[in-house]
C-alpha cells in the first residue's frame, strides 16, 4: 500500500504563511477600498449549520477568508466527565449528528480497549453493518444539501427518500430514527429483531439503482461539472499537512482509509475497494463519496451474509462486572443481583489508563481520547473531530475562487458544526 503517486494538482503549498487557517488579503489590494467585507454568518442557508465565514471580496473574487466557529459549542467533554460510563455513551451521538452511529462506536471501542473486553462476533458484525448504513445516511445528507446549494434542488428530494429507508432500518433495529444508542460496552443493547435481515436485503437491492439515478442526474450535468471541476483545489501534501482525512484526503490522491490500513471491528475480513481520485477539487470529493456509498452497500451485503448464519449467538459479552445480567438470572442467583445493583447504581469501573481510538467516520478519522482514573466516571474525554479539521482547510481551498464557488467548496468539505464545535 504505498501512497498513490501524487499527481501535481498545483506547485508548492497554498497554505497561507502567516496563519495556516486565515487567508489574508494580498498587500496590494489592502490599500484599495474596493474590498467588501461580508459575513457569511451563523444564520446562512449555505453554511451547513452555524459556521460563520468572514469573507473579504474584491468584486466577485474571494481574496480574504477566516472561519469563525463556536456558535454550537455544547461542552460535551465537560458533561461527559460528570456522567458514569454507561450514561456517557448517550452523548457522543449528538456530536456528529449526521454520522451518529460512528461516533457512538468510537467511544464504545475506547471503553472496551480500556477494559480489554472481548465482544462476541455477532455484535462486531452488526456494529459494522449499522456503521456502514450510517455512512450511507451521512453521504446522502451531504449529497442532498450540497446539490441543493448548487441549484440541483431535485437531488434533495431523491436523497432524502433513500435516507428515510435507512432511518426505517435503524428504527426497526433500535426503535429510534437517529441517535439510536444501540451500542453498549460489550456488544449491543438488544438482540437483532426478526425481520431485519429481509428488510435490509430489500434496501441493499434497491440502493445501487438509486445511486445510478443520482449519477444520471448529476454526473453529466453541464452546470454541475462547470461549478465543481477545478474548484477548491487541495494538493496531497497540503491535505496531509492540514490533517485532512477521509473523503477530502482520498480526493487529493492519498490512498488512505483507516478501515483498510488500520482495521478495527472486522473490516479486515470484508472485501471492499477504497476509491481514490487525484483531482483534489469539489468534483472529486463528490465522486469519492458516491463510490463510497456503493462500497458501503457491498460491505452491508457481506455483513448480512455473515449475520444470517449467527442466529441464537450471544450479542453481548457476559462479563458480569460490566454487562447487565439477563433478567431471569436475577431471580435465581445472588451474585447477578449484586452485579446488577452495582452496575445500575454506581456504574461499572474502568481500569485506570489513557487510550486513543480512531475509526473511519464518514467525514474522516474520528478519534476518541479517554483518560480513566479507575472510577465509575471518565476523567477526560476528547473527540478528534474531522469537521473541525476540515474547516481549517477552507482558507487553503479558497484561493482564487468566486463567491459562488466558495459555497461549493464549503459544501464539499462536508463539515458538521456539532462535530466541529463539540
Amino acid at each position, binding site marked *: 500500500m504505498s501512497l498513490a503517486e501524487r499527481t501535481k494538482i498545483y506547485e508548492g503549498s497554498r497554505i497561507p504563511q502567516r496563519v495556516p487557517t486565515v487567508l489574508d488579503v494580498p498587500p496590494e489590494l489592502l490599500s484599495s477600498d*474596493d474590498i467588501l467585507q461580508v459575513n457569511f454568518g451563523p444564520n446562512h442557508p449555505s453554511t451547513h449549520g452555524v459556521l460563520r465565514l468572514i469573507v473579504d471580496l474584491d468584486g466577485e473574487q474571494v481574496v480574504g477568508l477566516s472561519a469563525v466557529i463556536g456558535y454550537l459549542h455544547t461542552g460535551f467533554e465537560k458533561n461527559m466527565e460528570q456522567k458514569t460510563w454507561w450514561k456517557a455513551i448517550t452523548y457522543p451521538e449528538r456530536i456528529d449528528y449526521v454520522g451518529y452511529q460512528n461516533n457512538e462506536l468510537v467511544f464504545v471501542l475506547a471503553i472496551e480497549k480500556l477494559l480489554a473486553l472481548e465482544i462476541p462476533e455477532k455484535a462486531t458484525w452488526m456494529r459494522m453493518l449499522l456503521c456502514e448504513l450510517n455512512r450511507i445516511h451521512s453521504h446522502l445528507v451531504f449529497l442532498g444539501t450540497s446539490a441543493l446549494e448548487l441549484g440541483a434542488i431535485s437531488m434533495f428530494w431523491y436523497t432524502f427518500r433513500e435516507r428515510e429507508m435507512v432511518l426505517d432500518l435503524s428504527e426497526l433495529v433500535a426503535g429510534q430514527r437517529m441517535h439510536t444508542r444501540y451500542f453498549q460496552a460489550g456488544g449491543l443493547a438488544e438482540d437483532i429483531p426478526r425481520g431485519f435481515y429481509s428488510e435490509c436485503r430489500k434496501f441493499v437491492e434497491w440502493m445501487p439503482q438509486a445511486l445510478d439515478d443520482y449519477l444520471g442526474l448529476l454526473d453529466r450535468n453541464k452546470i454541475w461539472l462547470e461549478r465543481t471541476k477545478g474548484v477548491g483545489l487541495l494538493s496531497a501534501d497540503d491535505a496531509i499537512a492540514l490533517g485532512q482525512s477521509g473523503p477530502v484526503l482520498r480526493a487529493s490522491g492519498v490512498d488512505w482509509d483507516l478501515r483498510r490500513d488500520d482495521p478495527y471491528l472486522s473490516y479486515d475480513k470484508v472485501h471492499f475497494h477504497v476509491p481514490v481520485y487525484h483531482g483534489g477539487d469539489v468534483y472529486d470529493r463528490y465522486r469519492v463519496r458516491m463510490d463510497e456509498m456503493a462500497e458501503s452497500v457491498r460491505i452491508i451485503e457481506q455483513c448480512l451474509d455473515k449475520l444470517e448464519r449467527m442466529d441464537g449467538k450471544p450479542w453481548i459479552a457476559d462479563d458480569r462486572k460490566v454487562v447487565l445480567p439477563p433478567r431471569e438470572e436475577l431471580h435465581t442467583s445472588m451474585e447477578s443481583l449484586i452485579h446488577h445493583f452495582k452496575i445500575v447504581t454506581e456504574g461499572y469501573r474502568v481500569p485506570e489508563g489513557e487510550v486513543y481510538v480512531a475509526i473511519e467516520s464518514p467525514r474522516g478519522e474520528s478519534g476518541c481520547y479517554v483518560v480513566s482514573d479507575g472510577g465509575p466516571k471518565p476523567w477526560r474525554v476528547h473527540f478528534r473531530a474531522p469537521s473541525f479539521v476540515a474547516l481549517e482547510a477552507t482558507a487553503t481551498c479558497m484561493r482564487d475562487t468566486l463567491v459562488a464557488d466558495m459555497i461549493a467548496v464549503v459544501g464539499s468539505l462536508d463539515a458538521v458544526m456539532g462535530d466541529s464545535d463539540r
Partner: protein
Amino acid sequence: MLRDWLPFLIYGLLALAIPASMIYASFALATRPARRTRARLVPFESGVSQGQMKPQRFTVSFYLTAMLFIVFDIEIVFLYPLAVQLHALGWFGFVEFLFFIVILLVAYVYIWRKGALDW
C-alpha cells in the same frame, strides 16, 4: 371609436385595481409592532450585524456586466414586434433584421475577445 377602446380601458382599470388593493390590504390588515425595536432598522447580516452598513464602493466590473446585459436584453425586446408581424413583412423584414443581428453579433465577438465576459 370609444367602443373599440373599451377593452383597453377595462384592462387598464384592472391593472390599476389589483396592485392598489394589495397595497391597501397590506396597510389595513397588517399587524403593527408595538414599538419599533432598534434591531428592526439594522440590516440583516446573518445575525451578526453591528449597525448600519457603511456605504462601500462596488468594483466597476459589476457596472460593466450590467451594461452588457442591458445591450443584449434590449436586443430581444426589438425582436417581439418583428415576431408578431413577420408574416406580413415577409422576406424583407427577415433580411432587414439579419443586419441588426449581425451588428450585435460583431459587438458580442468583440467583447468576448476582449475578455469582458469572464470575471
